[in-house]
């Protein structure tokens, strides 16, 4: 929304850059005070950034973070707070991993297998989010509570299912437990990047597609319009013929479906099995990334990249002898200072806009003329 002008572009950039600089400053002070060298830290991060492997890993992390952020953002656009992305993607990854690894899948053509896996994950994610949606629509249960509870329940459910007696494979002697590995035909090939031992997730394109879809639906479709309208004013949406309950249900299901995708790049591009070391907690990162990127498809992508880079540079910090916890502090400070900066810029912009309106109205010049 809003117009495109040099001023708005400048303002748009001022906020994140200023905030980033501020965050760096805060962290430098913290490091300095506690007897660590800020310069070493910067040096470590810069050299990490130049390493192709860190780059690829950051991009891979960003892929999953981005999907999680989009899932969260769909809810946010409706003023729904889906804290449950975490449980949704874990349950979805686990069940779809079990499906994709199953022996009967091995006969199917590769494309079909991957598609089936992905669709299954989306269905599971949507289903789990649907529980919260139904509770909200029929019983008015706050989605904040229900998704917190569902996250925990998903954990227990996954543990229950991740047992050789159920969906896990029997791995004698191993201290890990996981679903049957997906063989080559069910995997999504990664992209070879020169100079890096890691491959770029093939499903990075899926994330891009989801991001595009998110933008397209919100900006170009009737449904997206109704979704945004409901988020901006429920009462106005109702008066405009939007069924809020339906919107809650559908957007929660969509959010859950996208959440279901969160585990896919990792599962089909690297882990090939859902086991104990499958990364948890991405749903919560998604919340931070969505907020940082202000629910904007491009903003979230940048935020996800930043987040991915910070996470993947902590090893380098560790090597340089800088406490890796500084990364967590930095992430918190960045989120906070970015939003403070955005708020300040927003206030400035509103005043400017009102000034424009005032000028257009013409009736407001009295004092200004006098002073001019």
């Amino acid at each position, binding site marked *: *929304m809003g117009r495109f002008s040099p001023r708005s572009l400048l303002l748009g950039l001022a906020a994140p850059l200023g905030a980033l600089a501020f965050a760096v400053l805060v962290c430098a002070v913290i490091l300095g005070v506690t007897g660590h060298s800020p310069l070493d830290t910067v040096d470590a991060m810069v050299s990490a950034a130049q390493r192709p492997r860190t780059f690829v890993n950051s991009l891979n992390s960003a892929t999953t973070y981005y999907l999680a952020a989009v899932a969260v953002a769909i809810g946010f656009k409706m003023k729904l707070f889906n804290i449950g992305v975490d449980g949704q993607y874990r349950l979805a990854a686990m069940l779809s991993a079990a499906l994709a690894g199953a022996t009967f899948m091995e006969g199917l053509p590769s494309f079909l297998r991957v598609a089936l896996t992905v669709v299954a994950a989306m269905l599971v994610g949507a289903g789990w989010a649907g529980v919260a949606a139904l509770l909200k629509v029929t019983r008015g249960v706050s989605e904040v509570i229900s998704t917190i509870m569902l996250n925990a329940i998903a954990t227990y459910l996954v543990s229950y299912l991740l047992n050789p007696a159920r969906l896990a494979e029997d791995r004698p002697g191993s201290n890990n437990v996981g679903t049957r590995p997906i063989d080559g035909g069910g995997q999504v090939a990664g992209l070879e990047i020169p100079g890096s031992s890691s491959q770029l997730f093939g499903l990075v394109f899926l994330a891009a597609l989801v991001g595009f879809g998110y933008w397209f639906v919100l900006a170009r479709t*009737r449904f997206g319009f109704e979704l945004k309208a409901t988020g901006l004013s429920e009462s106005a949406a109702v008066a405009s013929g939007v069924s809020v309950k339906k919107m809650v249900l559908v957007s929660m299901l969509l959010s859950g479906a996208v959440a279901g995708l969160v585990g896919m790049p990792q599962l089909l591009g690297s882990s090939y099995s859902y086991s104990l070391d499958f990364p948890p907690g991405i749903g919560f990162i998604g919340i931070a990334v969505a907020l940082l990127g202000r629910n904007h498809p491009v903003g979230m992508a940048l935020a996800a990249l930043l987040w991915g880079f910070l996470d993947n540079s902590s090893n380098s910090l560790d090597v340089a002898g800088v406490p890796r916890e500084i990364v967590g502090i930095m992430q918190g400070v960045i989120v906070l200072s970015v939003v403070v900066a955005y708020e300040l810029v927003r206030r400035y912009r*509103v005043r400017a806009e009102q*000034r424009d*309106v*005032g000028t257009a109205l013409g009736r407001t010049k009295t004092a200004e003329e006098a002073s001019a």
Partner: protein
Amino acid sequence: MPTEPAAGGEPAPAVELSGITKRFPGVTANSDVNITVRAGTVHALVGENGAGKSTLMKILYGMQQPDEGQIRIGGVPTAFGSPADAIKAGIGMVHQHFMLADNLTVLENVVLGSEPRAGVRLDFRAARERIREISAAYSLNVDPDRVVDDLGVGERQRVEILKVLYRGARTLILDEPTAVLVPQEVDELFGNLRELKAEGLTIVFISHKLDEVLSVADDITVMRRGTTVASVSPREVTSRQLAELMVGSALPVPELRDSTVTDRPVLTVTGLTVTGADGRTVLDGLSFTIHAGEVLGIAGVEGNGQAELVEALMGIRTPTAGTVRLGGENITRASTRHRREAGIGYVPEDRHRQGVLLEATLWENRVLGHQTRRPSSRGALLDLKGAKADTERIVRDYDVRTPGIGVHASALSGGNQQKLIVGREMSADPVLLIASHPTRGVDVGAQAAIWEHIRRARAEHLAVLLISADLDELIGMSDTLAVILRGRLVADYDPSTVTPEQLGSAMTGAGRED
């Protein structure tokens, strides 16, 4: 303090505002305003929407700080940093919009900020007693232990006045206290005001209803475009003269001229009954018909079922009994969307709640409610080009004052938002327009424009359900008039013969009941 005598024989004026200037970004709300309010009088302040009356009063009440100018209370120069200072100086204000916490009790709302204490505790008993006392003394009739949410507008208004009296204010500012009251309630209020005046209190009173002003005020100050343009005595002006002072030109009048009513029924409502959340019947077997080219006006005190009627017709509320037919079609159970697509236009009572998305651009607001139809969309996709072009058209045709269609609706003034809404609802060539208070809070110029648009559409066989608190508007714009009281239509009137007084007594149930 307010009665402290000045050097001359006469007591010092209760309030003197001199050279007050207040600028907002892009708007100069007040510029060099001068007002003198004599102690123990009712002083009326009139002016168009946006003339700067409320801003001036907020400055006097310490809620806004002036950029320039001086305030004298009882002859003493004063500066208010916050309402607390003003309250201490004996000033109280009843705001244009209710300043009440709905979920707190009357008692809590009243004592907030000036609580009687027993140790560190709030002394509920003392508070209750004092509220009862004041309530009885000025016959305000409020129960301290009710939750504000359960009160009607009239009661809320009295709670607001009680708040001020509770603080022992000697100067009362009443910003459009009568806007939501019916004539009988207004009379009651004026009775209260006279009583207060008799006790030596000073009252500053803002209203758009000029006959009221003439009947109650001792002095009148007129504001236009942020400054005071005249100070007159009510004995020396007529309401027409006063209005022309306000506007700086002649006034428009709502009137329909010749009838365009056909015999083709557009909206037929039979036995419509709606039950509220608490099980009360809020609409009780309503039946009426509106024909093509007919405006049905509904008069009533707010809270007698108008909102429920409108929502039931729009499909926002489900009726418990009765049928609604649009043309030949039974739409009793149809969704809001279907109704809108079938040709119902809707100008809601509260534009910020139901009419616009404040944080969305004008063209997005154009799409709102029309997202399923051309030119806003094609199939499942929005038609941005179409929507924007049509928004430009509305901005032009309805004289919406804005620098462009890309600004947020929140940047527009209320009147301009309302013009956009009316333009939008008319754009889809509706067969039926449901208009709730279409000109509320809109200044005279825009009022005239909105009336003209309704008249023109009526001539093209639009059926209109008009709900308004402005009885002149109702009488002037309706082909048929009905009065709603406690969820029932209690009387029909011919607008060409009825007077506002007759309507008023029917609205309160004081008049004849058939």
